[in-house]
């Protein structure tokens, strides 16, 4: 092993096997510089593990009990109903959803088939479920964080609610760069995974959507919805989102110097068409390899106005496995879908996040902009 290989392995310390670790230590025993580097690295880890943490306050548990005692009894009953009802609602709604999807697909078979064969989109139908109570209000109106001012004396058992306002919520908003990836890939400074890696500028932003190179917006289910269902069905397909025309490669680009946007590592869904044409070489690559190349992309890029807008979006990054529950929480929290993502009032958004917390759903919200009393964001799946 040479020093270059040593440094590469040290950069990947968490992923080393026992055999690789032995090789690392063997080289460190023979090379003073590398030994110093390894000792420095391990010293940081040791200090990190020993950072003292103060004892928690002695009255922490008492304070929790005081807060719980202040929760009105009716709210506690509602919490219990909500938590229990979800267990019953989900299977019933799932069956109803499947039946309705079958109906919608059957009625729109030709339209769907046309979309699936259309190379300009990804051909996946997105669906959403909207649940409201008989008054058209969201079932879970209370925020976990707040004590409601009105007391519900006799909460109705939450069975299958009557849907009056099914909201057309796209699961994932439009994919602006899906079809333009090839053009962008050739015009942009490409990701250079090996020796020519660009030196990182100062990064202060949380990971953003990988706008470069050629990476379309992250999404788990690109939306190609059919027409909205006429009946108050539980499943509504979102409208097809209009893809803006992409400027040609020679169009004027906006350069962001000292870019503060870091491209995050993650699992990205790249449409087949984009993968096929965005590759820098002729050799076909597996999806995993393509993802690996697109994941680490840091540096200064020339971006279009659209890409800049995309980078400046607020992003809610979640696990793909939680999408259904998250859409459910959105419906209950009055988070509205738009052609470019989602929007909610600040209080509704806070309520939405509280619901995710209560469900134990992990999320990472990256806020790049704030606008008045509304929060606009895109949903990205990890």
């Amino acid at each position, binding site marked *: 092993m040479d020093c270059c290989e040593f440094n590469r392995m040290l950069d990947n310390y968490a992923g080393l096997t026992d055999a690789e670790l032995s090789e690392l230590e063997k080289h460190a025993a023979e090379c003073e510089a590398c030994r110093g580097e390894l000792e420095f690295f391990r010293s940081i880890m040791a200090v990190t593990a020993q*950072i003292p943490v103060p004892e928690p306050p002695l009255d922490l548990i008492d304070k929790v009990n005081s807060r719980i005692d202040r929760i009105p009894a009716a709210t506690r009953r509602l919490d219990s109903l909500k938590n229990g009802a979800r267990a019953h609602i989900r299977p019933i709604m799932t069956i109803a959803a499947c039946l309705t999807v079958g109906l919608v697909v059957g009625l729109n078979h030709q339209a769907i088939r046309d979309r699936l064969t259309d190379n300009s989109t990804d051909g996946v139908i997105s669906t959403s479920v909207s649940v409201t109570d008989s008054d058209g209000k969201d079932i879970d109106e209370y925020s976990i964080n707040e004590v409601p001012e009105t007391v519900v004396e006799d909460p109705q058992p939450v069975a299958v609610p009557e849907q009056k306002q099914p909201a057309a919520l796209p699961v994932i908003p439009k994919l602006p760069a899906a079809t333009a990836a090839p053009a962008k890939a050739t015009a942009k400074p490409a990701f250079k995974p090996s020796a020519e890696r660009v030196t990182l500028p100062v990064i202060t932003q949380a990971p953003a959507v990988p706008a470069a190179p050629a990476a379309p917006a992250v999404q788990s289910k690109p939306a190609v919805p059919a027409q909205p269902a006429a009946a108050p069905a539980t499943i509504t397909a979102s409208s097809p989102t209009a893809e803006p025309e992409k400027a040609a490669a020679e169009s004027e680009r906006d350069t962001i110097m000292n870019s503060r946007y870091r491209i995050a590592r993650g699992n990205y869904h790249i449409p087949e068409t984009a993968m096929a044409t965005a590759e820098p070489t002729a050799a076909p690559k597996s999806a995993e390899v393509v993802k690996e190349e697109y994941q680490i992309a840091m540096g200064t890029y020339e971006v279009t106005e659209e890409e800049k807008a995309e980078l400046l979006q607020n992003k809610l990054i979640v696990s793909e496995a939680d999408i259904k529950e998250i859409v459910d929480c959105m419906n209950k929290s009055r988070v509205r879908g738009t052609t470019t993502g989602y929007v909610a009032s600040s209080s509704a958004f806070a309520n939405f996040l509280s619901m995710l917390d209560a469900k134990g759903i992990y999320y990472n919200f990256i806020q790049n902009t704030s606008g008045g009393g509304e929060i606009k964001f895109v949903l990205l799946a990890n």
Partner: protein
Amino acid sequence: MRRLTDREMIARCKKGDREAFNGLMEAYHKQVFNISYGMLSDYEDASDAAQEVFVKVWRSISGFKGESSFTTWLYRICANVCNDILRKRQRRGMTVSLDADDGEKSPAAELPSDAPTPEESLEADERQRLVREAIDSLSDEFRTVIVLSDLQQLSYEEVANVLKIPTGTVKSRLNRARNALRKKLSDKRELF
């Protein structure tokens, strides 16, 4: 008298047994506080966060289906609560430093060092302060994995379960976070 298992305490909590819930809090309040303090670096915020975590746990425990372990669920709520607080701080433009003089000594500043000599004690304190500051300067994503893995000593699989990301992604983020720490501390190498 045998101590109730977590499963038994959770089952009782679901029926509204506050004593059982107190038992859960006794068992886990330190870990929750440690994670909160690791992420927030502020005693009061960590205390508030820990309270918030347990209130949320109480309010939603009847919905806990046991598909993941209780600690995974608990730590996930803790990470979300801490990230919420960090976002609110960002919006207010607040930064927190362990050395900030707010007119009141934080308990963190009174922690005893176990170094044998005054000089070594000073050096050890300085190393910890530098590493602490470096961790605080990391992004939320990197700070979270460092706190869960290197401070809280969770395994890669446990961290993956808490954050609902693949184990490979945990290792990747940890590598990048540790490399970032190395880079930030490189000019103070002589202290390490």
